[in-house]
């Protein structure tokens, strides 16, 4: 009953002093909303792959080892691994998931170039239990030419969900029959697919056609190309299982190495591959492997985000205390009267805690509205798919309530102690005096918030600057006026004709063909200098045609471009990148001939004469060191997947290309992008973090403004008596404003003095992750300072000015 009275008084108080109360409420809501968003994100990221039934029994096998001192840690494993691991006693099921190449796929409704084509063993759905809209998990991958589609893929290609039995044409040649439609793979899974076809079918076909270059991988322990998952029996000791897997595989691998490398497996040229187990639910945050099917997140970021969420809540709580007690005077009478008429200290503490908790829940309600409203922005920023509904359904929702309750208790604790300790007669007579210590504590909080906002602002500017710097630096190609068009798939018939057709158009300057273009992740292949059997070199291999370098605008730094076709010695000519040259020089060899070791079974040429050196072409941006690369001729365009088209600046050049495409490649959709856009894509991750930093910087600024409002309101109350005395002594408006807010500026300046060096330090820390960096100009530090001073001035003028005017007019 008493509580109802408290809540009634509280709401009437809000209505009576609506301006300041709304400000406090809004501050609290923003704080809660932001920390909720961050916590939802942390929750989302830390629950990857936990939606599979029996997720604790599902493990992925990974490969690790070394090739000539280079460590290998890869998520992909060799094909034969699954068969061997299935023999282990503790294993219930093993399946392989094999990524397919990009394919041109046509349904009855649409036709497009698809990159989500995967193959799997028939037992896939026994481990990864997806909901079937049509078909059943046991037979879905058993028939030949069967393909399982996800719901959104079915909609995209057929315009409807129920498409079981429909035909899907791939690369205009082979036909699959849809055997089942499943729900989309949940967004927080470490892999995703759009199509799933039967891998044993492909395997059987390849065995029948040993001349197919892909047939070599079937029994090859050194060819890593598929993801292998196992479901362990219940209550299995994982380390025991790991040992079992190692024991089963070690001999197979050793035999293969011995066969492939004529007994070499020791010393500097040592090759060793082992297999480990990782729990699927740990992959997203903790896997440190190459060749992940999807982008991972760092657990470090999650710790940082959790800390940020807690920090936001703390600052919000302290701001609430500040704002509540800054305007304490208007509650003095009520508290005094309650004390006169029998309220004890405990009851008053209860009252103020109840109020703060009620306030927090009111703020939570507003915060949820804000979250719902901001979530799309946030999803776009973090590139994820979260929804409040997913989060609210979870039993963990109780934590939101607990958190809000705690926030209420925390933020109400100081007002509760402050008010309950008032002497009623002093409160009634206005003889309240806040201790100097209270002022200093509030001031330090302002300094801290200012420093934090400054650090984030400078960091944001620094990130923007670094991105700009990176994008303007040379990437080894000229991105202006160049298009990259995907040919798509392995069927290259008609590609050379298309190139010729394009070259005949006046709008087109140059055309080049390549297997990989900037933005791709080229295959890394092992090489050695001819005659040097002691060392293996890992180089990215790219099959290109002779037009590639000029179309891309690459720069030759030594030697010459190659001629297509083998030279008199029978070796093909190769151009290497500058960083490959450095690597080769480091190895001390002076040979001119490179010999390919890995991937030899599928290559046409394996002996190359190095004739030229090209400036490093950044395939994935210039954040890290350039990747050593070898460019070898792609004769008859057998491996080319892309065209690079350099246009002249005539208007309608892109239309001209499309026109030629329609003539030469009827029925194929032209997927293209500009080289400039691909380059932009290198820094998507940095861009994402820059956006997040902008968000936090803005939030920090908002929190700082709330802090400043609280501080100025508090100072005016603190100095109120002095203000009246000075007014009587004929001090003017400006004198009074300057007098009452002296400490406000002092603590603000203190925060800036603290924030500037901290900002420089944090920025350097971030920049350490880049191989090329810049020096942030001094005005990038001055601008945020000016912005904050301006905000501080506005706050002082509005909140302080109004109160001082009251004093002057009284």
């Amino acid at each position, binding site marked *: *009953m*008493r509580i109802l*009275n408290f809540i*009634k*008084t509280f709401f*009437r*108080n809000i209505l*009576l002093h609506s301006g300041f109360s709304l400000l406090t409420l809004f501050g609290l809501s923003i704080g809660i909303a932001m920390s909720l968003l961050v916590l939802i994100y942390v929750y989302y990221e830390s629950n990857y792959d936990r939606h599979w039934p029996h997720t604790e029994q599902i493990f992925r096998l990974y490969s690790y080892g070394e090739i000539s001192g280079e460590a290998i840690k890869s998520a992909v494993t060799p094909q034969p691994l699954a068969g061997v691991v299935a023999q282990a006693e503790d294993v219930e099921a093993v399946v392989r998931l094999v990524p397919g190449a990009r394919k041109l796929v046509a349904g009855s409704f649409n036709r497009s170039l698809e990159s989500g084509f995967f193959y799997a063993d028939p037992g896939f759905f026994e481990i990864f239990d997806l909901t079937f809209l049509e078909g059943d998990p046991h037979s879905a991958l058993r028939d030949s030419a069967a393909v399982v589609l996800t719901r959104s893929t079915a909609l995209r290609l057929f315009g409807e969900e129920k498409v079981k039995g429909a035909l899907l044409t791939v690369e205009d040649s082979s036909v699959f029959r849809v055997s089942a439609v499943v729900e989309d793979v949940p967004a927080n899974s470490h892999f995703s697919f759009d199509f799933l076809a039967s891998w044993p079918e492909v395997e059987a076909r390849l065995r029948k056609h040993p001349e197919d270059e892909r047939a070599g991988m079937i029994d090859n322990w050194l060819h890593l190309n598929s993801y292998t998952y196992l479901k362990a029996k219940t209550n299995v000791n994982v380390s025991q299982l790991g040992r079992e897997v190692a024991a089963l595989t070690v001999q197979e691998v050793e035999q293969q190495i011995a066969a492939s490398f004529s007994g070499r497996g020791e010393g500097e040229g040592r090759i060793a591959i082992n297999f480990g187990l990782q729990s699927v639910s740990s992959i997203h945050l903790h896997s440190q492997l190459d060749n992940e099917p999807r982008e991972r997140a760092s657990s470090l970021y999650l710790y940082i985000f959790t800390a940020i969420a807690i920090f936001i809540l703390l600052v919000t709580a302290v701001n609430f205390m500040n704002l509540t007690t800054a305007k304490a005077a208007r509650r003095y*009478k*009520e508290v*005094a*009267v*309650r*004390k*006169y*008429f*029998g*309220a*004890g*200290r405990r*009851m008053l503490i209860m009252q103020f805690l109840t109020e703060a908790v009620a306030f927090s829940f009111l703020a939570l309600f507003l915060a949820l509205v804000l979250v719902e409203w901001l979530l799309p922005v946030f999803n776009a920023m973090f590139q994820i798919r979260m929804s409040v509904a997913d989060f609210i359904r979870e039993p963990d929702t109780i934590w939101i309530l607990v958190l809000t309750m705690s926030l209420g208790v925390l933020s109400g604790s100081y007002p509760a102690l402050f008010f309950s300790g008032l*002497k*009623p*007669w002093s409160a*009634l007579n206005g003889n309240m005096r806040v201790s100097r210590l209270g002022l200093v504590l509030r001031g330090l909080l302002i300094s801290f918030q200012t420093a934090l906002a400054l650090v984030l602002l400078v960091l944001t500017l620094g990130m923007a600057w670094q991105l700009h710097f990176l994008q303007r630096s040379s990437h080894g190609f000229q991105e202006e006026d160049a298009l990259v068009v995907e040919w798509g798939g392995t069927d290259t018939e008609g590609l050379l004709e298309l190139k010729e057709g394009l070259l005949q158009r006046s709008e087109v300057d140059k055309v080049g063909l390549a297997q990989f273009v900037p933005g791709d992740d080229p295959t890394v292949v092992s090489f050695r200098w001819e005659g040097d059997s002691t060392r293996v070199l890992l180089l990215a291999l790219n099959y290109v045609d002779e037009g590639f370098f000029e179309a891309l605008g690459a720069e030759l730094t030594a030697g010459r471009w190659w001629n297509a076709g083998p030279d008199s010695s029978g070796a093909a000519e190769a151009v290497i990148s500058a960083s490959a040259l450095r690597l080769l020089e480091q190895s001390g060899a002076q040979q001119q001939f490179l010999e390919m070791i890995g991937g030899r079974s599928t290559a046409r040429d394996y002996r190359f004469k190095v004739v030229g050196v090209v400036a490093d072409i950044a395939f994935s941006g210039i954040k890290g060191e350039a990747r050593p690369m070898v460019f070898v001729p792609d004769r008859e365009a057998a491996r080319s997947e892309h065209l690079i088209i350099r246009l002249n600046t005539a208007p309608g050049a892109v239309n001209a290309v499309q026109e030629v495409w329609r003539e030469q490649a009827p029925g194929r959709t032209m997927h293209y992008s500009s080289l400039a856009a691909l380059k932009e894509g290198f820094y998507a991750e940095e861009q994402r973090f820059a956006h997040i930093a902008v968000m936090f910087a803005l939030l920090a600024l908002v929190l700082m403004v709330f802090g400043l409002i609280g501080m100025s309101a508090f100072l005016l109350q603190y100095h109120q008596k002095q203000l009246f005395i000075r007014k009587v002594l004929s001090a003017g408006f400006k004198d009074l404003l300057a007098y009452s807010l002296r400490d406000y500026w002092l603590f603000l300046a203190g925060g800036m003095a603290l924030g500037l060096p901290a900002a420089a330090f944090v920025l350097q820390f971030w920049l350490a992750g880049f191989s090329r960096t810049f020096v942030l100009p001094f005005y990038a530090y001055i601008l945020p300072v000016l912005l904050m001073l301006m905000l501080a001035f506005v706050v002082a003028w509005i909140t302080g000015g109004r109160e001082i005017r009251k004093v002057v007019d009284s």
Partner: protein
Amino acid sequence: MAGAGVGFEAQANRKALSDTGQRVYDLEQWLMIHTRDLVKGYHGQEVTTPVLINVNIDVGDGEFVAIAGPSGSGKSTLFNILGLLEAPDAGSIVFRGEEVAGLGEADRLALRRGHIAYVFRQFNLVDELSVAENVALPLLYLKMKRSERRERVEEALGRFGLGHISRRFPRQLSGLQQQMTALARATVFQPTLLLADEPTGNLNSAGGSAVMEALSAINEAGTTLVLFTNSMQEAQKARRIIQLFDGHVVTDHAHT
């Protein structure tokens, strides 16, 4: 001087004079308040300002006593001490037979809750509460059934003619209505002692008279009343006047 006046002639047989000339009561429980040598000062950083010096006051059960004195005479401090809000620095104060000088805040609260009521010059109604809610406020801190509480509030509102404005808020009331509400609030729990600190100070003369009449009525109904005032004219309404000057009791005599 303390002891010079005779406040309780009817009970003359119950008191005796000590050697020092001060009154000594053999039946202390008969008294509402009994103070001996009360001392209170305000302690600044370097100087202590004495506010009450050796104050001896007795207020009998059911009495109407006025404590009169100019500003700075120590009235407000005495109000707080007699109201058990503040503890004296030295001396004794007995409330309904119990020594309270050495008690802590919580014990003093337990003694005054439900027994002592206060009325102020500034009315001091809670702005966020309606008239009825203001009146009900002291009952919230007493264990009482809702129905009983409602009954008592209605009765108090009726007594002071506030029934028709019970849903209004203080800012919608005249000064007199506010002070009447304060009186209703002060008497709703039927206190044994009512302390009124310049209750007419913010009212015009008509309002002042109405409040004084109401206070007399409260006293006649059995509540002990101590009126703090700087107006001798008002003090005359009491049956006994204690004059305070610079922290000393200068006179204490019955008024007829």
